[in-house]
């Protein structure tokens, strides 16, 4: 205990009396923090942009067309598959989901969106937080997500124009916005939801597709009576429903094209940035210890223990790292206030917390060699250097 108080005294005095030098190191750590937190936020933002709608589904399983490799855009199911799924034991509800992309115009500005269709009240239809859900049939009504509202200024009650290329020519359709959902980003685009019939009328399609007015769902979101029975219900679905494959939500997300590769890239960037942090901090403290060899020799000669000398170095590293991370965290927050919603930055509590813990660890890890070096300095040899 006495060693620790001596160590804290020495460490804090040195930091305070050399605050300019230590602040510079803290600022380097702050920049690394800024970078790591932004990479974490970018990773979360990109992931969110890709998976938000799927991750938020009130469902445990997703039914795909057989051999579609769990890729939503490659899957197109038959209309009667929905009823076959609903008849399987253990299925509480099943909602077909129809996906496409298009462009809407609002206030003269085009905005690319994911055009989704779902059945109101079934899995696949997110809760409406303002207004109401669209009516069934060819109602020409739409529910938009908050991001569409934020980016375009469209509000409940407004009319939007959908531009779709159908059979080689651009067609324009007016939809009445009747409701608002929380953010439902899919494929990096904000989302508008309509009824399946309206979706089939307004979605971009080829000349061949135009001959058939029937909307075919890409996937079916399946809600289970007992989520714990996911394995058995999956087997049942595969056994009872022909030409389908079934995946849980995480597998579906992992198979969103580019999702895993993109997350891997972002995580690698984050890890390399942390590694650079470890080397920078390690280098700084190692140089500092080398400069302090005679001083450490004197400390040990007059009776300071190895424990006190080592703990002093550790405390110093922790203090400098913590100050750097705090400054970096503050800077990140300030910068984040100024970013437009089009930049996919999401400061998720969990990923930011992991990043901060990793950042707080890079100091002690980076400084480990210097701490060991300090503890091993022999006072006699150190004093002979004088």
């Amino acid at each position, binding site marked *: 205990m006495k060693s620790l108080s001596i160590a804290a005294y020495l460490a804090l*005095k040195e930091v305070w*009396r050399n605050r300019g030098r230590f602040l510079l190191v803290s600022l380097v750590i702050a920049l690394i923090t800024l970078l790591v937190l932004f990479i974490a936020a970018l990773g979360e933002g990109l992931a969110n942009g890709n998976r938000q709608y799927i991750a938020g589904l009130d469902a445990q399983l997703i039914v795909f067309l057989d051999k579609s490799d769990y890729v939503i855009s490659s899957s197109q199911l038959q209309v009667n598959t929905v009823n076959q799924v609903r008849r399987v034991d253990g299925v509480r509800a099943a909602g077909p989901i129809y996906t496409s992309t298009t462009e809407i115009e609002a206030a003269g500005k085009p905005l690319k969106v994911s055009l989704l269709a779902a059945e109101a009240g079934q899995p696949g239809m997110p809760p409406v937080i303002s207004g109401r859900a669209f009516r069934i049939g060819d109602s020409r009504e739409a529910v938009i997500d908050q991001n569409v509202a934020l980016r375009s200024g469209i509000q409940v009650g407004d009319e939007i124009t959908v531009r779709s290329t159908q059979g080689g020519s651009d067609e324009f359709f007016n939809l009445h916005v009747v409701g608002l959902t929380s953010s439902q980003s899919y494929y990096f685009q904000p989302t508008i939801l309509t009824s399946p019939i309206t979706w089939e009328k307004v979605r971009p399609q080829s000349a061949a597709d135009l001959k058939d007015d029937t909307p075919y769902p890409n996937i079916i979101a399946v809600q289970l009576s007992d989520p714990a029975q996911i394995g058995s219900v999956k087997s049942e679905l595969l056994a009872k429903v022909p030409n389908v494959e079934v995946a849980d939500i995480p597998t579906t997300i992992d198979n969103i094209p580019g999702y895993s590769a993109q997350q891997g890239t972002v995580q690698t960037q984050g890890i390399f940035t942390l590694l650079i942090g470890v080397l920078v901090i390690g280098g700084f403290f190692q140089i500092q210890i080398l400069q302090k060899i005679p001083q450490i020799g*004197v400390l*040990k000669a*007059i009776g*300071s*223990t190895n424990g006190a000398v080592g703990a002093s170095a550790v405390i110093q590293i922790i203090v400098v790292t913590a100050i750097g991370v705090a400054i970096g965290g503050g800077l990140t927050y300030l910068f984040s206030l100024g970013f437009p919603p089009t930049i996919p930055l999401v400061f998720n509590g969990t990923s930011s917390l992991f990043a901060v813990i990793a950042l707080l660890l890079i100091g002690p890890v980076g400084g480990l060699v210097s701490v060991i070096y300090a503890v091993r300095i022999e006072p*006699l040899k150190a*004093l002979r250097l004088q």
Partner: protein
Amino acid sequence: MKETVLEVRNLVKTFILDGSALNAVDHVSFQVHSGEFLALVGPSGSGKTTLLSMLAALLMPSSGEIFIDGHQLSTMNEAERVKLRRSRIGFTFQSNNLIPYLTARENVEFMLRLNGTLGKVTRLRAEELLARLGLEERLHSLPSQMSGGQQQRVAIARALIHNPAVVLADEPTASLDTERAMQVVQTFAALIHENQRAGIMVTHDLRMCKYVDRVLQMRDGKLVKEYKSRPEIEALAKGERN
């Protein structure tokens, strides 16, 4: 009757150099009493610093015994030796003596802090000791803001503040000009005598012997001569004897 504070019995330190054994300290024996200030002199390589390192419990002898204030060094483990250095020994070194980020007062108080005796009374004593050394204006100065002589005086205060049994000084005047060196050693000697400590100073500058009570001369690791009487020591300091 003065108490024997430091006793060295038949001390030997052998180093192996190029495969052959060399006695850096060769069967040395002496005693130092409380209130006695002793100088160890001799040419470079005579074994002075090696002897001082063993007295400071920083280097283990090859054979022989050292007793400091009744404690036999050879029976102690490393932790006990660290504790002994902290509580029973005071140090000054050639240079870079002080912790650069502590003020003069904090450097002196650090010894009290190490020994767990820092309090209102001991803080006052540190202040008085620094004032006694002419540093009352420098209490809050960092080492970099003080001259070499002032730094050495702070180091002397630090070596004495915790009432050690033995005070060891390795070339304490090596980085000072003659006038400042004389002042520092004179003050050092006065404090050793006043506080009844046992002081040992290694020096190559024989003029500094003027202020000590006894001089031990070393050559090739052996104690070759002892100067005890005042006239002998004065003559040595004046360069009349060697």
